[in-house]
């Protein structure tokens, strides 16, 4: 009987009979989620343009370990970013901070879009008067020419 129990115990310890539900790699999935979110926006300094989240470099793993500790200590996202910036500078942020040196960067695209569309509007307005003057066709004649052209279009 003793031997039977020992056998069963041995089999159970081997653990191969019934597979289990895989355990998450991280101790605390919620902390891990926050870590991934924060480190995706941080740069791995020893890599050729990779984020801290994905890199397998030694320094990246060390830094992720540090950040995990900070998250567990209850630090906010901006405190964690500050931790990194005070040691490595703005270079470590993939989302460039908004400061005078980056106003052009952040405002540029939308400014360009607005300026472009306004310029387009002004240009179109002016163009119509120019063309009318150039061709000498009246609006009525232009419309007729247009209709004829549209027929040819199909």
């Amino acid at each position, binding site marked *: 009987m003793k031997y039977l129990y020992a056998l069963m115990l041995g089999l159970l310890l081997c653990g191969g009979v019934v597979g289990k539900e895989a355990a998450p790699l991280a101790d605390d999935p919620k902390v891990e989620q926050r870590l991934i979110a924060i480190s995706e926006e941080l740069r791995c*300094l*020893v890599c050729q343009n990779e984020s801290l989240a994905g890199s397998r470099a030694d*320094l990246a793993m*060390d830094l992720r370990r540090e950040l995990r500790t900070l998250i567990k200590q209850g630090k906010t996202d901006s405190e964690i970013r500050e931790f990194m*910036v005070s*040691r*490595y*500078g703005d270079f470590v942020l993939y989302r460039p901070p908004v400061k005078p040196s980056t106003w052009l960067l952040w405002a540029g695209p939308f400014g360009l879009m607005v300026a472009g569309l306004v310029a387009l509007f002004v240009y179109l307005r002016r163009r119509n008067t120019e063309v009318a003057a150039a061709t000498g066709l009246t609006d009525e004649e232009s419309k007729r020419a247009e209709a004829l052209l549209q027929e040819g279009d199909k």
Partner: protein
Amino acid sequence: MNAKTLIPLVLFAVLAGFLAVGLGLDPREVPSPLVDKPAPAFKIAQLEPADAQFSPEDMKGKVWLFNVWASWCVACRQEHPVLMEFARAKVAPLIGLDYKDQRKDALGVLKRTGNPYDVIAFDADGRVGIDYGVYGVPESYVIDKAGVIRYKHIGPITMETMEKTIIPLIQKLQKS
């Protein structure tokens, strides 16, 4: 030719100018935000004797050179002779930070090539390195009497840098 059609050419010229300047820059070189800030505090064991400790507090009142190195770091071998020279000239205390290393490997290298350091702190897990913004060994810091970092050098120190930049800076700080 009118002003409007010249705009693309002008914009391109500006762009080309920046690209030309860019050719002379190194995008991987990261300046340190720690310059002109107090050296981060720490208190860790020394490489040898292992029960002794080191802290930047110990160096208050002196100007010193803080050098981060490791036995596995190939570039550190390049700057080693320069550091030996620095130690021989007795310009200022040279403190080493052995970064993410094994004690016996570090001691072995020092025995083979010589030990220029007055004291060596042993940063086993790299935490101190992170506080100092270390991302590529070797890195060196010139720290003044008040414990403020005045200069950071990334990569091996060449004789030229030592003579033209580091030593003059140390001497200037020592006078003040």
